[in-house]
């Protein structure tokens, strides 16, 4: 346990020292937030969604940053594989379980950083919420990130460091678009209907909690569970194929 903790601590330290991470997972969403929400800070119901622009984009871009953080673990895994480091790790007593736990803890810490950065940015544009609402939103976000954690591990074991950048960038953009990060998707229409089955949609819907709603219906929980099962299965398969384990 202690060993795994030390290992995780250094894993976190490494990630924090990576400047690219800060630009992509923190800086980029922050800049976008001020660009999108800044001019609309007085809009109280963005496109009739019932949520003020400052809150909507805060949660949208927090989702964006957090998704990037989760999938960036794939980049770290792909790089470790490419340089042969994960072969080195496989001849240490570090179990696959502890290895994945360290990756997950690191991803989640980074995602939390993205959330907190966006919350602070939101506050600076006048977002005020009771403490309980902040916590509930954050809790939903953390649950909603589970499928992305699994997806990060899966792509890390399939793709090469060359291809993973565009794949993750494109993937996050697509998830963000269908999830309604850039604009509310409305109550009906093709994109809205499709989005119901996409995990990022429910991630963004967590913003409704700010107004006392119950953003996640039964469909939401089932969609989240289904994607989690799918991506976890892919991750386990990819890991086994990669390492020849059975």
């Amino acid at each position, binding site marked *: 346990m202690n060993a795994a903790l030390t290992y995780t601590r*250094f894993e976190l330290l490494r990630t924090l020292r990576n400047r690219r991470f800060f630009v992509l997972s923190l800086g980029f969403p922050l800049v976008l937030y001020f660009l999108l929400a800044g001019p609309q800070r007085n809009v109280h119901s963005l496109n009739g969604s019932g949520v003020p622009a400052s809150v909507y984009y805060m949660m949208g871009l927090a989702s964006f940053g957090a998704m990037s953080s989760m999938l960036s673990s794939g980049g770290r895994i792909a790089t470790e594989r490419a340089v042969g480091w994960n072969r080195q790790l496989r001849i240490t007593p570090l179990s696959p379980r502890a290895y994945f736990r360290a990756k997950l803890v690191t991803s989640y810490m980074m995602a939390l950083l993205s959330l907190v950065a966006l919350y602070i940015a939101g506050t600076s544009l006048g977002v005020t919420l009771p403490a309980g609402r902040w916590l509930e939103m954050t809790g939903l976000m953390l649950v909603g990130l589970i499928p992305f954690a699994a997806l990060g591990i899966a792509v890390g074991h399939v793709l090469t460091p060359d291809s993973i950048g565009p794949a993750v960038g494109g993937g996050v953009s697509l998830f963000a678009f269908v999830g309604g990060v850039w604009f509310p998707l409305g109550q009906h229409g093709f994109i809205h209907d499709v989005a119901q089955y996409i995990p990022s949609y429910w991630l963004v819907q967590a913003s409704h909690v700010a107004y006392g709603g119950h953003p996640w219906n039964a469909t939401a929980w089932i969609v989240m569970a289904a994607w989690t099962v799918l991506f976890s299965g892919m991750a386990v398969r990819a890991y086994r194929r990669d390492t020849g384990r059975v």
Partner: protein
Amino acid sequence: MTGAAADAQAHGGSDIELSGLVKSFHGPDGPIRAVRGVDVRIAAGETVALLGPNGAGKSTTIDMLLGLLAPDGGSVSVFGRSPSQAVARGMVGAMLQTGALIRDLSVRELVTMMASLYPAPLAVEEVLDLTGVSEIADQRTNKLSGGQTQRVRFAVALVSNPELLVLDEPTVAMDVEGRRDFWATMRAFAARGKTIVFATHYLEEADAYADRAVLMARGSIVADGPTTEIKAMVGTRTIRATLGEADERTLVGLPGVSSAERRGEAVVLVCSDSDAAIRALLESHPQARDIEIAAAGLEEAFMELTA
């Protein structure tokens, strides 16, 4: 006797045993039989060199010894356990052939991180000192030269304080001084009663640092014994000379010549006794010129041994 070795003996096996190991890979022209039935027994405390040319199957054998690769056939036992059990108990340390270091950590941080994974690691500062990386301990791992990277990789393998240390062509990227320091450290580690297996294609390294050498060629073991014996076995020489017209069959018939091959104007004679061969050659072919006599490379020696 160290704790882990005693522990292993209590479980009925203090040796490392590879029996009937077979491994094939998919190649563009059908399966490549990388390892074709390898049987080796290594006693605890022994230092064994795995010797052979590139493509002999050394690295594949090592990967199976470490549990990184599952054999198609045969079995591996490390101190009476499966490789993965031995690895899980921290009994195995290795410096693999390929591999860079992960970035964004200092050398000291990286070694500390790896040490934390083992039940009874050596002291980090001691290992940094032993492997000659104390001066660069605060440098980031991504700012090191090739030779420095090799030293740090050795430090990572050593800090685990393993019962079995496996080194796959450890000195490839090192300069002369680096090699000397490396082997001195390795010998000191062996003196603690540790088992060491290293792969190399340098006969001199095997001769100088191993108790025993296992020779591999084309996926099989072609010789296994004390390095002195191996040296005698591969002690063949080649004579290369320009002869113009010459019959290969006549050349093979000369005393001390075991095979002859024409390469354009020149012939290459692989000799078991080059002294006898050159005398006979000059007598029968006085026109011979541009004569070179050289110690056979391992490659030629293996061909000879497996012919």
